[in-house]
């Protein structure tokens, strides 16, 4: 670990990618993530990497497909409308089983929406976005430090599963500055691409010709590909769920489920309520897919717990996953704000105490 530096979330994401050994970045500017591109436009040349501003987000997605298919570590960043444009390519990348990292610094929607913080892309990230039967591994940081840490985990995870990983931030995570400490460099080459990458026979220890494709016209072959993908998603659920329990030891009567920026507001609300003698627990999913299903169920099932509430910067998206996990055992409520208005801790306290 190095010295603490004060950095914007967007800049820290760019630096963390380089430290994770990713030297290929293709992107198209959009608020509130443009500082990633700004930062990497001078930083990538310094480290011998590639910075490329594409002609559109659609093109970015297929440049990622090409680079990942050739066995290179590659990533992009965008914000909500840009991710929509990339979603066709994301589906192809998932179908062709390629490792790549996407970052969505979410802004308000739908449509052009606004440029302020939002979590309105929860469904898009966790349930699809593009067509077909696929999932992304979705991570949601709550701070600049965690955004940097998750970037460094994202590449090995993408390679472990040969599946795209997406970091779901929001405008606030991208724009705010906090102290951040970077881990040392990880290894700088993707591993185990001998058996799938189309990087040229001279670069791999295998004589098998590799084909990267998502087209399977034979129904049995396509079914087989879908089964392979499904097995990966099941494995993610066993091996790579991340969540943070907060104030879960006491006899809490209310349980909050919240992630990202919103969960930080909830933490302050929980601390303030504790001073008043009111115990509230929280599960903060750090991976949104795979979702911490068992943790949410067990937290809701605790005897003292009377009600569960999903608090999100969206109009009731994660609450559907929370309801699914709680299985009717407790009433599940929702509270959220949109448009970029991040609720204050006082507002969250009112909402939780009035349950």
């Amino acid at each position: 670990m190095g010295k603490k530096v004060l950095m914007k979330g967007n800049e820290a994401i760019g630096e963390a990618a380089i430290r994770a050994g990713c030297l290929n970045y293709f992107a198209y500017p959009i608020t509130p993530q443009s500082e990633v591109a700004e930062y990497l436009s001078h930083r990538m040349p310094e480290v011998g990497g590639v910075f490329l501003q594409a002609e559109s987000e659609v093109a970015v997605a297929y440049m990622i497909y090409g680079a990942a298919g050739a066995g290179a570590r590659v990533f992009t960043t965008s914000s909500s409308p840009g991710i929509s444009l990339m979603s066709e390519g994301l589906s192809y990348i998932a179908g062709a089983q390629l490792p790549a990292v996407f970052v969505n610094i979410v802004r308000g929607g739908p449509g052009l929406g606004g440029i302020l913080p939002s979590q309105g892309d929860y469904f898009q990230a966790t349930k699809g976005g593009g067509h077909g039967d696929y999932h992304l591994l979705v991570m949601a940081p709550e701070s600049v430090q965690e955004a940097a840490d998750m970037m460094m985990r994202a590449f090995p995870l993408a390679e472990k599963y040969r599946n795209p990983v997406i970091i779901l931030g929001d405008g606030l995570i991208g724009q705010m500055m906090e102290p951040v400490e970077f881990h040392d460099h990880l290894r700088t080459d993707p591993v185990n691409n001998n058996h799938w990458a189309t990087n040229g026979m001279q670069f791999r220890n295998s004589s098998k010709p590799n084909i990267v494709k998502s087209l399977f016209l034979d129904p049995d072959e396509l079914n087989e590909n879908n089964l392979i993908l499904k097995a990966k998603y099941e494995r993610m659920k066993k091996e790579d769920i991340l969540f943070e329990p907060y104030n879960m030891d006491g006899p809490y009567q209310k349980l909050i489920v919240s992630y990202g920026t919103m969960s930080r507001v909830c933490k302050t609300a929980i601390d303030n309520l504790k001073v008043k003698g009111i115990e509230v627990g929280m599960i903060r999913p750090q991976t949104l897919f795979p979702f911490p299903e068992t943790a949410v169920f067990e937290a809701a099932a605790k005897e003292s717990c009377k009600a569960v509430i999903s608090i999100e910067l969206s109009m009731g998206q994660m609450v559907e996953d929370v309801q699914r996990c709680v299985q009717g055992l407790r009433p599940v409520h929702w509270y959220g704000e949109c448009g970029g208005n991040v609720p204050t801790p006082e507002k969250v306290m009112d909402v939780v105490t009035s349950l």
Partner: protein
Amino acid sequence: MQSEVMFAGFGGQGILMSGKVLAHAAMEEGHEVLWMPSYGPEMRGGTAYCLVMISDRLIGSPVVRNPSHLVAMNRPSLEKFAPLIKPAGVVLINSSLIAIDAGREDLDVIKIPVTAIAKELGNVRAANIVALGAFVERSKIVGFDTLRHCVHEEFVNKKNFLSLNMNALEEGKKAAEMLPKK
């Protein structure tokens, strides 16, 4: 213990930078810090603000209803934020551009003509650092030597502005020292 400082003014007055320098100084002193800009479609002449949070423990909510202190560089900023500041907070009014009061008796209001002081130093753009010097001298929110070090780091690669801003910091400090004590 946590305090929040709101810096507010016109776009182009260096609001985001003075906030960043303060955040840097607090980080150097070992505090947890968070710097949050207004990042709407601001431009030169529009409104700009940033919030700096300084704490001795991990910072939770980046959203605060009532900040502890305010540095108001123009009148709309004072009118908008003064009613929100916690009692006993320091409110710096840039009296070169603001002809009104904070309208509250429970605040530590200091009126300093930071724009005029910067003009006397030769460059109106240093008004933000004059304000920063005065605010830190009054609030003692970070040590002044740490602040000097951080202003130096901020401008060390902008040689033409280094001595200007180091002087601006000292002039701001002097202006605050001349005021009656709380």
